């Protein structure tokens, strides 16, 4: 059987025996800089802008709702089941459908609407990244199939960067089958290194920081 054969060959190559204890791995290297909330928000917004994403800082839920309404401009949209979107009043905007639990139904809709609206579990200030964990509240395809992605993130959810994310979430697999980090709109430079946005994922991304 290939499993036994490969493991046996690996052990022989390394001079190890089955079940032999291992040396201590190098200590985990995570550095947490002190960054206050305002600096995180500023950095998040400027990083997203630098990647050709659009941003808005909403003081209140109502403000956020108004901005999303302008972005939608009457276009059709699917919103995730994140409670934060309901709190912001997104679900009652015209043209927005939500509450899907059936994969096939959601997928068919995501393939036809213009805009996908989600929250984000976290954001990373130093790279302008959204962190999305698949759950009953967040499907995978809403941030992927529609040509426009709008994400609403509470300001308090913005972390300094990767090191803080992996400090808070040392074992992402304990919570979800899929954690995706989104840093700007989908892009390619495969032909003559010419940058084109929106090749398979959304070509436009809007990040709304609330609070």
């Amino acid at each position, binding site marked *: 059987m290939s499993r036994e054969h490969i493991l046996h060959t690996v052990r022989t190559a390394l001079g190890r025996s089955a079940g032999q204890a291992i040396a201590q791995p190098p200590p985990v290297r995570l550095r947490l800089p002190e960054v206050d909330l305002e600096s995180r928000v500023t950095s998040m917004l400027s990083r997203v802008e630098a990647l050709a994403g659009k941003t808005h800082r909403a003081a209140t839920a109502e403000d956020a709702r108004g901005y999303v309404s302008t972005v939608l401009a009457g276009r059709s949209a699917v919103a995730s089941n994140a409670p934060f979107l309901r709190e912001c009043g997104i679900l009652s905007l015209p043209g927005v459908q939500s509450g899907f639990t059936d994969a096939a139904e959601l997928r068919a809709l995501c393939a036809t609407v213009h805009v996908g609206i989600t929250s984000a579990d976290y954001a990373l200030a130093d790279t302008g990244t959204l962190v999305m964990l698949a759950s009953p509240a967040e*499907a995978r*395809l809403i941030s992927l199939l529609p040509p426009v992605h709008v994400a609403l993130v509470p300001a308090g959810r913005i972390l300094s960067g990767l090191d803080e994310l992996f400090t808070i979430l040392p*074992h992402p697999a304990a919570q979800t089958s899929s954690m995706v980090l989104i840093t700007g709109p989908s892009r*390619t430079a495969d032909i003559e*290194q010419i940058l084109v946005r*929106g090749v398979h994922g959304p070509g436009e991304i809007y990040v709304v920081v609330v609070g």
Partner: protein
Amino acid sequence: MSAAFDEKVHNTLADANLQLAIYRATARLIDHRKHAVTADALPDYQELRTEANAIKRHTIDHLDHYLEQFEANVTAHGGKVVWCQDATEVADFVLGLAKERHARLIVKSKSMTTEEIDLNERLEHHHLESVETDLGEYILQLAHQRPYHIVAPALHLTRYDVGDLFARTLGVANETAVEKQTLIARSVLREKFLAADIGISGANFLVADSGAVLLVENEGNARLTTSAPRIHIAVAGIEKLIPRAQDLAVFLKLLGRSATGQALTVYTSFLSGPRRTGEIDGPEEFYVVLLDNGRTKLLADSAKRESLYCIRCGACLNHCPVYRKIGGHSFPWVYSGPIGAIITPQFLGVKHEPALPFASSLCGACAEVCPVKIDIPKILLDLRAEVKQDERRDGRGRMERLVFKLWAWVMCHPRIYEMAAMVAAGVAPAENGAWLRKAPALMDVAPVRAWLSQRDLPPAPPKSFRELWRKR
């Protein structure tokens, strides 16, 4: 040097457009990386490299442990690990699963490992459609070519090539605007994503403590490949393991920056098992193929084992003066550039292309930019020694050995060296540099002719260094 290698090198050198394309693309990638790893952009860059090297060294030295831990965690999350020794076993597994699940269409995201085992060709041979979805890889699949570069697979093609190719193979109008070409590919491939039964991805990392596959990409095709079809298969070499999810904080900071100068690529997917109860979408079945295909051979050689630390960022290709002249397709296997020059002979044997370890100036640029600090020049030297030992076993290279023995002997005897130098200086004209080339007797000897085709001895100086030294 094999005739095929020689011919490809010469054809590449003679193609001015291709030379320009390679030069431009690699120059841009060099520039992007340079700005991403400055002291301002990433103050602890060198520390991170040292750390990445230490983690990889530890993992590879205890690989059996981490493979078993990885398997246990994949299983715990409802996925399945499939161990494969070679290309045939991978193809058999995919074909068997496709048959059982009545699958007809496969979408693929970019993976050098599947290129290595010609997976698409093997599947198509059994009438299973397998479509590449990364834009560059899709173009190459239509053109029936292999990747020119690890991260920029189609860097040798122009937009005019792509326009012709799409018109010919897809029956669309010949578009030369890259935006329009991208839209054409998007709409063709979107249909494939929504119809596919199986998605096959590679893996940038396998995370042992999570049983997770980590994928980085910019287009979103890897996300679609791993989210839309009901079955996800990740094909990965056994060396892709890292111990902990937290180690990604080190590797992710290095990979995007070294490859394209991005702090993070657009999408980074951390995938552990099929869709869980309550989750709305995602695959129902999740498989990770752990492939050996010669990797255990590299593992057995402790001096060159570090070749397996590679995270396939492509920085060594961009910075290599040889790659930048001879391009990706001159290399005899799917892996090109300095990393290709060290792993190809180890996977396929030094006989496969004995000239490969010599196709380097040993300038050291590759080692300097390698994010996991692989000492590529040292491994190239080891491989050169192996090539020579191999020749010796086959009873070849007697003349070369004799010449070098003689040379070593002369170098060890200063008086004789000086006498030889005086004789040579007496024969050599003081003015013209290209003097050996004018000796017909020498030009009749094939190896000497090859050597002199590119270089000659400089004219003799009026006084040798030794004379000057004595009279100082």
